[in-house]
């Protein structure tokens, strides 16, 4: 064991900045990172044990104790619940003979939960030793568990492969692309190198101005003008700079990057190379969420192929002046690492805690070098803009939002999947495309954005009206909006906060308790005022977008569905302590063996 660890550390150049890779590799070899291994790592990297532990304990997929020969991570997102996760979970527990959060006595099967794995269009889904299993049913679960009991290889448990590259040798996943609508920018004809060739005929400054003229705005959620970001970075004018592609895709309900990575990886990498040329960077990093580990080998083969074709490497397209390479950085399970500065921290082997700004990454990013971070979809757009020109691009979309957008549609509808639409499309039109009816609400932009009701279905998907990073969750009439939706989203933020800021660490739990009070019939008018007042503090007093938006599930439903809350609270009294004596004494009564005398 000591030797294995030593070799892995040496391979990473004894560099503490590579701690993520080191830990992931140790885990792949040894199953988990024991206390003994942690000590050895501290010694070899010349840091304290607690410094190793702080990274190790931050990420969901790192294990400090054995989690079974077969480790099941069942997705617990809202849509998974809507599609029958509860029955699937019960089947896992019954068949395996252990509860979620534990490992069977023989150490064979571990059952764990995880937040959104990017498969909302084929839920319930789970990761088993890194492989994706979709559309689970209790029947399938029985088969899977029996396979595990018999020592079957996980690869061999996959019955049939998905469409497109999902079925290729290096992927072999049962995931389906579910591309439901192709548009004229992203899901359109493409042969690798077209954009790059055009770009290299221009000066870097001209490439930047072309991107600026296209009015391309970031597709990761914040909508920052891409050309402007590049210009800031180029202006920093330092010897070394970096391009990062954000493929963390953590916002519950988005899965469009999954499809881009599967079917259009060349497009993403080419976009990175173009941006590298524009800002004067020689190195690019694709930050890939751990949930998409099943695509890693395939993506690496694409990188190799692009090197061979001189689309990457020392002398791209045989030019003297431009060389660019890309490496893949794996995440280890943390939604907050999609936040750009947390992504950099993570890539440096640390906890994924967002940084204070200023300085911004364009001045001081990865290892303190100027860095741009762009969403994978943004970078794909760049290639097409270079190929067809900014004028062509601005013809598409709405007033303030040029181009097209990939929307990940899931929830209560007939055709979940990825739709490429022009910006400015009405919510209603997407609902029609997806074959949705009897709809109570749509969560546009994921838990951190807005929950709207039918009165707003004429609104448009655009930066000027309803912006979205791509998540579009349809919630049918039969769903319990507060009990199921709001509570699930709050749980998500509670689990995913990095914990740095007082308010983000504390308030979501306070709000959740308040909602529980209302749901158990103890709510009064004042509780609704409190939810509003307390929730609004999140925006004011947190460092990053996670904390600033984590109260939105409450605030936006309070705004758009207030009658649902009103219907749950007591109107006969002004005050209800919410204290239930009977349930408060259950434990102690049980302990001393008597029934409460109330």
């Amino acid at each position, binding site marked *: 064991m000591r030797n294995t660890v030593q070799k892995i550390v040496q391979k990473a150049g004894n560099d503490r900045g590579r701690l993520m890779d080191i830990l992931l590799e140790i885990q792949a070899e040894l199953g988990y990172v024991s206390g003994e291994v942690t000590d050895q790592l501290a010694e070899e990297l010349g840091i304290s*044990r*607690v410094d190793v532990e*702080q990274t190790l304990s931050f990420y969901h997929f790192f294990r400090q104790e054995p989690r079974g020969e077969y480790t099941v991570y069942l997705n617990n997102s809202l849509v998974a619940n809507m599609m029958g996760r509860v029955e699937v979970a019960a089947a896992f527990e019954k068949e395996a003979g252990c509860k979620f959060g534990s490992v069977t006595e023989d150490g064979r099967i571990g059952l764990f939960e995880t937040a959104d794995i990017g498969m909302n269009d084929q839920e319930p889904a789970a990761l088993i030793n890194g492989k994706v299993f979709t559309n689970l049913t209790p029947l399938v679960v029985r088969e899977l568990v029996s396979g595990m009991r018999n020592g079957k290889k996980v690869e061999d448990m996959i019955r049939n492969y998905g469409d497109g590259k999902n079925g290729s040798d290096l992927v072999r996943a049962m995931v389906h692309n579910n591309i439901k609508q192709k548009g004229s920018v992203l899901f359109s004809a493409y042969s690798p190198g077209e954009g790059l060739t055009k770009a290299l005929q221009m000066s870097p400054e001209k490439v930047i101005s072309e991107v600026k003229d296209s009015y391309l705005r970031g597709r990761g959620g914040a909508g920052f003008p891409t050309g402007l970001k590049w210009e800031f970075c180029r202006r920093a004018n330092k010897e070394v700079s970096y391009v990062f592609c954000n493929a963390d895709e953590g916002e519950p309900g988005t899965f469009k990057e999954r499809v881009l990575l599967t079917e259009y990886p060349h497009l993403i990498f080419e976009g990175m190379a173009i941006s590298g040329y524009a800002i004067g960077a020689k190195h690019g990093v694709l930050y890939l969420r751990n949930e998409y580990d099943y695509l890693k080998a395939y993506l690496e083969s694409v990188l190799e192929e692009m090197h061979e074709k001189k689309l990457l490497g020392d002398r791209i397209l045989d030019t003297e002046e431009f060389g660019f390479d890309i490496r893949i950085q794996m995440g280890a399970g943390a939604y907050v690492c999609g936040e750009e500065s947390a992504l950099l921290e993570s890539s440096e082997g640390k906890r994924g805690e967002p940084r204070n700004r200023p300085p911004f990454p364009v001045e001081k990013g990865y290892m303190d070098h100027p860095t741009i971070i762009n969403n994978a979809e943004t970078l794909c757009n760049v290639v097409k803009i270079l190929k067809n020109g900014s004028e062509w691009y601005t013809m598409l979309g709405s007033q303030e939002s040029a181009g097209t957008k990939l929307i990940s549609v899931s929830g209560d509808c007939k055709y979940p999947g990825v739709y490429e639409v022009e910006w400015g499309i009405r919510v209603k039109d997407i609902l029609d495309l997806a074959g949705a009816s009897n709809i109570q609400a749509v969560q546009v932009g994921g838990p951190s954005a807005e929950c709207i009701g039918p009165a707003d279905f004429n609104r448009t998907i655009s930066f000027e009206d309803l912006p979205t990073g791509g998540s579009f969750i349809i919630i049918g009439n039969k769903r319990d909006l507060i009990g199921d939706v709001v509570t699930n989203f709050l749980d998500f933020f509670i689990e995913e906060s990095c914990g*740095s800021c*007082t*308010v983000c*660490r*504390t308030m979501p739990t306070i709000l959740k308790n308040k909602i529980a009070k209302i749901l158990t019939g103890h709510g009064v008018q004042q509780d609704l005022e409190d939810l509003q007042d307390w929730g609004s*503090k999140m925006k004011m007093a947190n460092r990053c977008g996670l904390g600033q938006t984590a109260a939105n599930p409450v605030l936006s439903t309070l705004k758009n569905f207030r009658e649902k809350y009103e219907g749950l609270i007591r109107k006969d009294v002004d005050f209800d302590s919410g204290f239930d004596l009977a349930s408060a004494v259950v434990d102690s009564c049980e302990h001393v063996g008597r029934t409460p005398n109330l």
Partner: protein
Amino acid sequence: MSEKIKFTIDGKECYAEPGQTILEAALDNGVYIPSLCYLKDVIPAGSCRICNVKVAGRFMTACTTPVAMGMEVENDIPELNELRVSIIEMLFVSGNHFCPACEKSGNCELQALAYKYTMMVPRYPYLFPEKKPDSGNKKLFIDRNRCILCKRCIRAVKDEQGRSLFAFKNRGNELAISLDHELAENISDELAEEAMEICPVGSILKKEKGFQQPIGHRKFDKQAIGSDIKSVIK
């Protein structure tokens, strides 16, 4: 000497050295901006959020934001003070703070801030989290019930080789401070003392000697936190 940067806090004309943060400059100009995680000469964390000020309508942490020429900072205004009290209240309900029995009472910055803002009882329901104290070290006792996760100890307490004695563990509402037992095994009495002083609350205690001054004679028993700042107006 380099050019001073002119800016204002609540209308008062102030001057900053280039690169100075709003908080540092405020202190130099005799203006008190309440803070908890801030520690002089140590990289700011920007995590407690109590030093929140407003600049051009936007909330910013004074401890991390550099002063810019002509900046108009809002500090002592009802909106911000309300926010600060609410943060202090959150710190109280998210830990287990029993001030009368705490060694640090009177020297505790959290308690002092609560007094300053005349907090009577937190508006938020107590969360009563279960927190495990760490008594396994010879020199130091860590009472996580009182820890406000300000990161001061992580940033400021290092061994001779620059390795941190403290670090965070876990994340979100399970975030906890942890002490490296091996490194802390042989620390000097001075470093142990320093660690205890660096902690704004009573979470880090030096074993065998928890306090020296009796209650009633401690720092904030005599004067409110921050009340010494205004006296240095230049």
